[in-house]
């Protein structure tokens, strides 16, 4: 299977200033999050992948297509939702989406049908005949999402999709993005300042800082690894309980107030921990999977690159 994004020594200059400094990395997951502080180069990377900026060195490929030499073919696969306002104010919502779908190559009747479907799907069915200029900020975000998905792209690029949305609207949008991801084999590239948005929708994260890659982290593997790390609060803890767990191949550390940390090997399931506890008469009052939040990963990456750069 082709990697979703491949970067090879990608260097991009804007106005004589180098914005991306030799980015190299391969991202294979279907849902990729793009993280970084302001000015890290996230939007520049997206614009380079869309062929708007030409790299001075190296290359950027999406689904095997070079953004510089195969730009048109690549853009035929993409649905793009930009960060800022991008609409035609006087057009009705559904006409605007139909217009964009036709430019992507859909025949007029198909474009009209897909525009209606996309509008109803994002939850703007009642407002589809209103001019886009009269929409609220959240509705404009949804209209942008509708135009990005109407033509059925293979890659969906979302730049700060939840900007300006209230919590319920944000939740609905995140659910939509997850639904889109799960309903088809679409690839997702989501750039956001909100780590939670990325955490809830993405499998892999590319963290940028000062135009350099601070970290590439596979969240699926992280989650899988963290599933094997348990924090227990027990009553009536006995040395035999931890000894029995260790006999199963677990590593245990006992703390005060009956707190135990357990690292389980892949072969051990959680039900076996419960069974051992039941056999030894130990009550498990609380059980947590350790979870390195994306925030930890992000801050860690920022600190590491900050240290490498000599600044935090």
């Amino acid at each position, binding site marked *: 299977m082709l990697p979703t994004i491949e970067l090879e020594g990608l260097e991009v200059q804007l106005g004589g200033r180098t914005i991306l400094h030799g980015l190299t990395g391969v991202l294979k997951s279907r849902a990729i999050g793009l993280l970084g502080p302001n000015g890290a180069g996230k*939007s520049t990377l997206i*614009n380079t992948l*869309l062929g*708007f*900026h030409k790299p001075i060195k190296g290359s950027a490929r999406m689904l095997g297509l070079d953004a510089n030499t195969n730009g*048109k*073919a690549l*853009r*035929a696969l*993409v649905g*793009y939702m*930009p*960060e*800022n*306002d*991008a*609409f*035609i*104010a*006087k057009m009705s919502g559904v006409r605007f989406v139909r*217009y*964009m779908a*036709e*430019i*992507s*190559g*859909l*025949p007029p009747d*198909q474009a009209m049908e*897909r525009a*209606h*479907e996309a509008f*109803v*799907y994002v939850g703007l*069915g009642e407002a589809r005949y209103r001019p886009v*200029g009269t929409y609220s900020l959240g509705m404009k975000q949804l209209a942008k999402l509708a*135009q990005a*998905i109407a*033509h*059925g792209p293979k890659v969906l*690029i979302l730049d700060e999709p939840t900007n300006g949305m209230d919590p319920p609207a944000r939740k609905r949008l995140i659910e939509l993005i997850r*639904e*889109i991801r799960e*309903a*088809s*084999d*679409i690839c997702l590239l989501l750039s956001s300042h909100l780590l939670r948005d990325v955490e809830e929708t993405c499998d892999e994260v590319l963290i940028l800082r000062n135009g350099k890659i601070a970290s590439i982290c596979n969240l699926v593997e992280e989650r899988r690894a963290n599933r094997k790390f348990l924090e227990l609060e027990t009553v009536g803890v006995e040395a035999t309980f931890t000894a029995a767990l260790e006999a199963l191949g677990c590593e245990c550390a006992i703390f005060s107030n009956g707190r135990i940390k357990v690292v389980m090997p892949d072969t051990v399931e959680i039900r076996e921990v419960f069974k051992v506890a039941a056999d030894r008469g130990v009550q498990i009052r609380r059980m947590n999977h350790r979870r390195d939040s994306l925030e930890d990963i992000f801050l860690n990456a920022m600190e590491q690159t900050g240290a490498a750069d000599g600044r935090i």
Partner: protein
Amino acid sequence: MAVYKRRYNPYTGSLTAAWSRFFVLTRFAFLDLFKSRFFVLLLILAIVPNLFFAGYIFVANNKTVQLLMQIRSADFLAVETQYFIIIMTVQTNVAFLLNCWVGPVLISGDLTNGALSLFLSRPFSRADYVLGKLAVLSILLSAVTWVPCLLLFGLQSGLARNGWVWSHLWMILPILLCSAIWVLMLSLMSLAVSAWVKLRIVATGVIFIAFVIPAALGEMFNAIMGTYWGALLNLSYMFRIVLERGLRDPFRLLAHMGRHEIPVPAAWAVMILVCLFCLVILNARLRARETVRG
């Protein structure tokens, strides 16, 4: 009302040919234009002069009507090159006015709210975009310039006898070329102004200024330097030179073709340079606005 499924479906149907997609812009622009009653009225008014020209040709070639109207054929201007120069002069002025109304809003609407990035993030280039918008003005201005002019030529050919058509067939090429350069120059100028100026009234003013101010500066230059090359800045005059010399206007050929006349190649070069200049500034503007900046 149709009931649509609330789930995402990938698109698996057919696609239109990539080369034809620029025409989507043209089609949508025309649909928007024809929603305006003022535009429809303007278009009808732009076509009206051609009805008078057609009537004139009909009467000029019809002895019965001339007798009924008690007029002598000699009182009429013969339908020759001079008459077609008048037709084209009227038509190109009408095209200028129509262009001033339509052109200024074609691109500014897309740039105002950053929609350009949505066009260009698809398999659609800047050239496709410009071509789509250019086609709107080219089709519209053609409909009031060379198309009716050739129809009038055809009417005259049909009504006149004695092999008029064969002796005047050469006129088709200058009619087409002169109209083409005028339409192209006006269209590109409008698009360039539309890309830089948001308000229609201001953009219309800028188009007028582009014709008037350089012409005035050129006249000042001529007066101060004692030359006639300042006329190169007068675009209407350049077009007149190209048109009258192209259609072999006897008055210009005999009386005015002298030392104080801008050569025809120079007039053509000026108009082509104006087109190229408009293309360059249009491209610069679109390139600057193709990505959304926060």
